[in-house]
């Protein structure tokens, strides 16, 4: 028996396919990155909704028998499979067995199967005891119609939907944080209901025809204390009414207390919940921008952006500035971008992320640059440098682009004084506002430009000025007309926006 288990476990451990499929299913059920997860979720939600609908409809209308079969067999079967798979991927029994076996061999002690197996099964049982697993299990049972009480099982199917409702999870999370206050409140509630119930039972059991048992008394107490007051049971003696009044007053106090606890819990966590939403949302896009620091420069950056901007998030550790950004209507998260946890929340693996370090202090910008680069080299960093003498440090830290406000401005002023005409031209080009902009065109393999010589291209007809091309990091200024364009060249062109776009489209289409 032991040998059989062991050899089976060893075989599973060795099988790559087994491990891969298990990981795949885990990802499909619990993960976030599997592309098919979305469809699975929609399918399950569809099953739940239809099955609940059938049952509700059936209360007053007859339904065809095949719908009953669908609900009874098909839905239940799918849920059963899902439950089993969830249980299966929760942990790895074969891994425990093999590890224990290896340890036993290593220490030359006797290999005992039972303790590991017990440990593994206990973990599975722990999983089965979690609320979501219980709901899953109960949702398997179809609502058996002839027995009215069993119809309650349909509720579990509805509850199963909770797995797909994020806001509910957040609600539970918030409530969990206030466990202590709410438990105190619950205890108080039990105490008052108990006292009032016993009092009314003792005082009116013989007199009031409505109160026949202690259960009636407790029911009355709870209905009264929550200010619901159905009125099906009412006190008839003066003593009973006095008890009622006291109960009502304490009820009002307790309800307002409970409300305030929950409200304050929410308001404490509201910004955090919102921020998590922002991060989740931005993580879905394939490329986005992380702006670190909402200072003057960031403000200017957003102001200059024409049209709405989608894929960005602002990080700032200063609460005042976060508030400011929020007021200005931007997506902002109150986090410190120099912390590892902050940046690793983002979808570093699958998205093209550009980080703008725009903090006022160079030290912080360097730190953020290093932080980003340590998480993934793929992240692009544009860093602001205030002190020109530490440029090399930024380069060493791996920043892709450096922004030196002081230097840029100094050059501008100098040009404005020494060569005013040129200043106008350069300013126009740099800001890209006017008729002339200098733009780049990346030539890719299948471009119709590849293989053509510079002389053959119709720059002049399209009112474009060909300034030069960059090849392997070298810039060739105004290459001779015989020069042949190669794949991956970057052409530097100047012209009006429409000329540039026209030229670009023309050669894209000619594929």
């Amino acid at each position, binding site marked *: 028996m032991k040998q059989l288990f062991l050899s089976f476990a060893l075989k599973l451990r060795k099988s790559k396919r087994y491990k891969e499929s298990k990981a795949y299913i885990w990802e499909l059920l619990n993960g976030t990155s599997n592309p098919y997860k979305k469809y699975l979720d929609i399918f399950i939600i569809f099953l739940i909704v239809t099955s609940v609908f059938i049952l509700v409809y059936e209360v007053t209308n007859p339904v065809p028998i095949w719908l009953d079969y669908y609900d009874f067999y098909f839905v239940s079967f799918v849920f059963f499979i899902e439950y089993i798979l969830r249980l299966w991927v929760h942990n790895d029994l074969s891994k425990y067995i093999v590890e224990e076996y290896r340890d036993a061999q290593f220490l030359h002690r006797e290999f005992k199967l039972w303790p590991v197996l017990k440990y593994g099964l206990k973990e599975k049982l722990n999983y089965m005891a979690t609320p979501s697993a219980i709901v899953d299990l109960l949702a398997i049972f179809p609502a058996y119609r002839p027995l009215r009480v069993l119809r309650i099982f349909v509720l579990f199917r509805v509850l199963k939907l909770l797995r797909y409702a994020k806001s509910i999870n957040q609600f539970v999370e918030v409530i969990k944080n206030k466990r202590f206050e709410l438990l105190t409140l619950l205890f108080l509630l039990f105490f008052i209901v108990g006292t009032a119930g016993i009092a009314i039972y003792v005082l009116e059991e013989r007199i009031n025809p409505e109160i026949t048992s202690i259960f009636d008394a407790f029911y009355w107490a709870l209905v009264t204390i929550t200010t619901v007051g159905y009125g099906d049971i009412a006190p008839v003696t003066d003593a009973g009414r006095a008890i009622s009044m006291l109960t009502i007053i304490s009820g009002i106090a307790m309800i307002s207390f409970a409300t305030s606890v929950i409200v304050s819990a929410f308001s404490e966590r509201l910004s955090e919940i919102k921020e998590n939403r922002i991060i989740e949302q931005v993580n879905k896009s394939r490329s986005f921008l992380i702006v670190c620091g909402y200072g003057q420069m960031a403000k200017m950056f957003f102001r*200059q952006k024409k049209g709405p901007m989608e894929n960005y998030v602002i990080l700032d550790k200063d609460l005042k500035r976060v508030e400011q950004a929020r007021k200005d209507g931007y997506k902002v998260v109150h986090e410190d971008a120099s912390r590892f946890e902050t940046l690793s929340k983002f979808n570093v693996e699958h998205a093209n992320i550009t980080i703008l370090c725009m903090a006022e202090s160079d030290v912080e910008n360097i730190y953020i640059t290093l932080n980003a680069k340590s998480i993934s080299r793929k992240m692009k960093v544009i860093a602001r440098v205030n002190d020109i003498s530490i440029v090399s440090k930024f380069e060493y830290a791996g920043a892709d682009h450096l*922004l030196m406000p002081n230097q840029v401005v100094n050059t501008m*002023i100098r040009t404005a004084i*020494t060569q005013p005409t040129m200043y106008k031209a350069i300013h126009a080009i740099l800001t890209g506002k006017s*008729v002339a902009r200098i733009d780049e065109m990346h030539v890719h393999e299948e471009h119709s430009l590849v293989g053509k010589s510079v002389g053959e291209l119709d720059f002049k007809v399209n009112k474009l000025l060909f300034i030069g091309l960059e090849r392997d990091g070298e810039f060739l200024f*105004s290459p001779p007309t015989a020069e042949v364009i190669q794949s991956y060249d*970057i052409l530097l062109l100047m012209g009006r926006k429409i000329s540039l776009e026209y030229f670009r489209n023309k050669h894209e289409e000619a594929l």
Partner: protein
Amino acid sequence: MSERSILLFGYGSHGKFIAKGLQEEGFLLKIIESNHDYYLQAKDDGFMDVEHMDVTNDRLLEVLNPQNYEQLVCVMEDEHLNVFLTLSLRSLFKESYILSISDSIHTTKKLKMAGANKVIDLYEVSANKIHNILKRPVATKLLENFVSGHDGISFKEMLIPKNSFLEGMTTDEVDFSPHGVLLIGMIDEALGHAFVFITAGITHELNYGDTIVCIGPEDALNRFSEEIKKKESQI
């Protein structure tokens, strides 16, 4: 005083750099600084014409005779002082050309109201650059190198002299590529003082007195600026 003289207010982080650049270009420079440390720094750096004075005093400003200078450049470290200075200069000397630096959005507005002819906004320029980097990284990097002259390629503006071979030619027919330079645009004096890009699609005639802006390797640009003085092109 000569045409190319500048009165520079402030020798802080910006003033220092600008002063150095202007000196290299051969400008006549007078530096005014109210901060004693910066004043000494300017002296140390070898500038002869440096004055230490209180720029809030109108009488002292008048003594400077700013109308004799081509441009007044206000780059004081203290932005409040900079706005105040711009305002004083404007109220005292209506005709002068004043260029000021601003390091916040609010200051830019104030400087314009105070009467500066040109305001260069540190943040506006930088934010613009970020957009450019995001949209066209290679072009931005190259352009930056052109402007600062890193790659040996730069811009140059030239005045078309009398009797140049360029006279009478139109922007459509000229081709400067044999000279190793490219024509970017020009100021056509006949059409007012506006800058026209070559790519705007309008044909202009080059005349004596027009300014052209070219791009190219530095030595080619220098050669070309000599070349256009001749009656006939050698090439």
